[in-house]
């Protein structure tokens, strides 16, 4: 229910939502108290196949050092944040450890009222000290926290009393609520160790972390599995399934095999494995739309690509349907906007749709000449471009092939992710086309680092080729500083219009997410959309049942 019609001020709106959500939470908690008794969940075990388990555990261990997105697997099982992002409401931040919160009118002071009676897995009481500690630790450069950049607008964190936390910002920053959903760690365990100068990853705490979430750390067998036990004292009520095991799977093929062998209850697979898991006895495949957009970044400083008409034409000429059919088993969607499937998507991207005639016309307009053999040339030289790729060679090949079909010479250069990106960071000028992937899973602001002229690689952004468009910049800045939903939506509409007229990317398609789930499992509810690596699969794991 993201179509909130409340037209009151920003703070009121947020509070309302928060209050609503609080009520929901209470209801859920009530329901859950009965669940274990009814479902006979006692002794049940949830077995989940997870890629990059070691990385996730490593990140979860130093959890505060990681945006919730990256640590989501561990964080959603073991930890809570001040707020959580509700997939059923377009990832609206709703109360979690904070019972409610208030935002000052100038958008600079956030006051959180903490939930009472929450305890850590070791029995200690959860207090505002823990929140202050975690946020300060994340901001401390010594801890090299990945979240530090997201929290850059925070100027101070204080705890007037045990139940209240006040976060002050130096400037209005709309996405801050999302950032404040990061996992909270126990001051009484981690605090002394960090104070002693131990790096987060090497603390004793990291070997057996303690949270407030629905599941508790039991045992970690590196490279193999992570064993978790249900937290009987979880504030929403004890989870119905008494044990959770996260099993490492090296890739989707192996996940498919272990699913087929009946060894795991659920795992994600990619489009390529659909043929293997469809019709598998005892499992169902759930396909979820996604915001994960594949794109080709364009080096706008390259003479061939300077002209926006050429960049629009490339968008028109690329065969998106081929990508979807060949790589996503026909289940992806053509992406004409970087904000596809988010709450702020508009139809501004229509002019980028695949349309060979329009593209051809635009190229001719831009001074390209099509020869008798169908090959394009500029100033008598046949057009030939390079397409660098570091992670999706098949996408690169299909794109290159479809552009070649249109008479544009494209040669694919693939390599290892770190190599190719290393080259890019070192010197982007040798590149023309470059495969990229991005998306706006929880807050549309995540595209800021892709389009804003300040977000160059040198500044820590992802705007690889120093794309700069004043209208785009203005719209993105505006979206950050207004805090009301409609105001932001308007700003993003402006952004999309400007970005469509002057594309920085060839936008390709979205890759949907396929979850294979055992029929024995109940209570799983997908978010609206999912994004690469940022899975909100587990957001309601405490409600799951297994028969």
């Amino acid at each position, binding site marked *: 229910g993201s179509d909130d019609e409340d037209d009151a001020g920003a703070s009121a709106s947020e509070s309302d939502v928060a209050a609503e959500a609080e009520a929901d939470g209470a209801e859920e908690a009530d329901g859950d108290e009965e669940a274990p008794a009814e479902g006979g969940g006692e002794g049940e*075990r949830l*077995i989940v196949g997870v890629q990059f388990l*070691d*990385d996730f555990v*490593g*990140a979860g*261990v*130093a959890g505060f050092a*990681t*945006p919730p997105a*990256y640590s989501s697997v561990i964080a959603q099982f073991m930890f809570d944040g001040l707020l959580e992002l509700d997939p059923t409401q377009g990832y609206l931040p709703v109360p979690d450890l904070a019972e409610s919160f208030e935002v000052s009118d100038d958008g600079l002071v956030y006051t959180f009222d903490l939930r009472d009676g929450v305890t850590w897995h070791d029995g200690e009481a959860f207090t505002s000290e823990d929140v202050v500690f975690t946020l300060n630790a994340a901001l401390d450069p010594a801890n*090299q926290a*990945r979240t530090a*950049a997201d929290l850059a607008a925070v100027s101070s964190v204080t705890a007037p009393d045990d139940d209240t936390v006040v976060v002050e910002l130096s400037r209005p920053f709309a996405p801050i609520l999302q950032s404040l959903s990061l996992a909270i760690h126990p001051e009484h365990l981690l605090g002394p160790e960090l104070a002693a100068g131990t*790096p*987060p*990853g*090497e603390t004793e705490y*990291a070997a057996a972390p303690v949270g407030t979430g629905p599941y508790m750390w039991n045992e970690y*067998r*590196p*490279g*193999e*599995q992570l*064993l978790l036990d249900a937290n009987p004292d979880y504030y929403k009520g004890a989870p119905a399934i008494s*044990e959770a*095991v996260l*099993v*490492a*799977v*090296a*890739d989707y*093929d*192996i996940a498919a*095999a*272990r699913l*087929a*062998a009946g*060894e*795991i209850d659920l795992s994600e697979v990619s489009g390529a494995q659909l043929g293997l898991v469809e019709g598998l006895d005892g499992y169902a495949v759930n396909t979820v739309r996604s915001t994960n957009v594949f794109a080709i970044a364009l080096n706008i400083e390259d003479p061939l690509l300077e002209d926006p008409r050429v960049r629009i034409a490339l968008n028109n000429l690329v065969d998106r349907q081929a990508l979807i059919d060949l790589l996503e088993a026909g289940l992806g969607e053509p992406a004409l906007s970087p904000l596809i499937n988010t709450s702020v998507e508009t139809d501004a991207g229509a002019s980028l749709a695949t349309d060979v005639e329009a593209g051809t016309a635009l190229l001719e307009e831009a001074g390209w000449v099509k020869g008798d053999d169908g090959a394009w040339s500029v100033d008598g030289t046949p057009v030939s471009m390079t397409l660098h790729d570091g992670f999706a060679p098949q996408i690169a090949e299909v794109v290159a092939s479809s552009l070649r079909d249109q008479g544009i010479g494209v040669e694919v250069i693939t390599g*290892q*992710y*770190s*190599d190719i*990106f*290393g*080259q890019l*960071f*070192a010197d982007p000028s040798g590149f023309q086309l470059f495969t990229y992937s991005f998306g706006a899973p929880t807050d549309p602001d995540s595209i800021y*680092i892709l389009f804003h002229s300040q977000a160059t*690689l*040198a*500044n*820590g*952004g*992802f705007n690889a080729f120093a794309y700069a468009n004043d209208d785009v910049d203005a719209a993105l800045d505006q979206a950050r500083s207004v805090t009301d939903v409609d105001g932001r939506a308007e700003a993003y509409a402006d952004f999309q219009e400007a970005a469509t007229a002057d594309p920085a990317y060839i936008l390709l398609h979205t890759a949907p997410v396929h979850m294979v789930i055992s029929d024995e499992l109940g209570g799983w509810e997908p978010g609206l959309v999912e994004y690469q690596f940022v899975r909100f699969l587990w957001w309601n794991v405490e409600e799951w049942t297994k028969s």
Partner: protein
Amino acid sequence: MTRYILGRIATLVPMLLVVCALTFALLDLAPGDPALRIATSLAGGPPDLSRVEDLRVELGLDDPLPVRFGRWLGDVVQGDFGRSAIDGSPVTERVVGALGPTLLLTGSGLLVSVLGGLLLGTTVGLLPDRGPARLVRGGIMAMTGVSFVVPTFLVALGGLWLFAVILGWFPAGGISDPGEPRTIASTLEHLILPAVILGVGTNLGVFTRLIAAGVEEQMDAEFVRNARSRSIGPRRIVSAHVVRTSIIPLVAQVGSSMAYLVGGAYAVEVVFGWPGLGRLAVEAAQDQDVTVILAVTVISGLVVVAGNLAADVLLGVIDPRVLIARRTT
């Protein structure tokens, strides 16, 4: 003999040093700025360039190569392999923890390929190359030749689907059942399929052929004719005379296949979710996690060296002429 072994061991230390220095230098040649790489992975995106400078100073990356190597070596000698360049976690535990499973898997894989090679190679060497026996020979050669034609990862994937998924005879992965404690029985249950696949997928073909070649040649040797004249049973002729002499090249080969096995078990480890060194190495290689790669190098180097030493000693035991040649030179 004891002297010889001690001598060999005394040479191991400098040898490992050379290996470490070599690897260290090679990895140093890799293009790209390690500080940038670390900063990138720490930041999970484009790093803050001033951070990169800090890191460079912090990690002493501007020091000359020998200085860095010395520092690293000093730490390693104290049992500290440093911190992962990717997530900053300590490497020592991970590498040491992965060593056990790797030894188990490669050891069993080697056993499978040696025993299988002996059995099948001898069979092939003994069967006449004519008549219906030719079919059996061809059959065995084709079967063991699988490893020549099919890459190990495909054998592993195929084996996984056939034996674990379709037939359900073995678990499909891991070293223990999800959520259950590790026991010897469950470890064995999980070990069989990957070990057999590793043995068949890597060395069985070579071993079978080596043995077959030797047996075929030795079966007409004068001393075998002599043994026949002494009414020594065919089985004993094969086991005590022929195999012993044909096994010499095999033992030499085992030594060099150690590294192949240790480093090469990766495919099997990845496919079967076996928490071993190979898998660690693959992941580290893909992440370019230099610290982990170095640690894996040292540890697997130790294993391989030990294996080579064992093979060398064995060679001397089997073929006295080798020992004598060594003693006189």
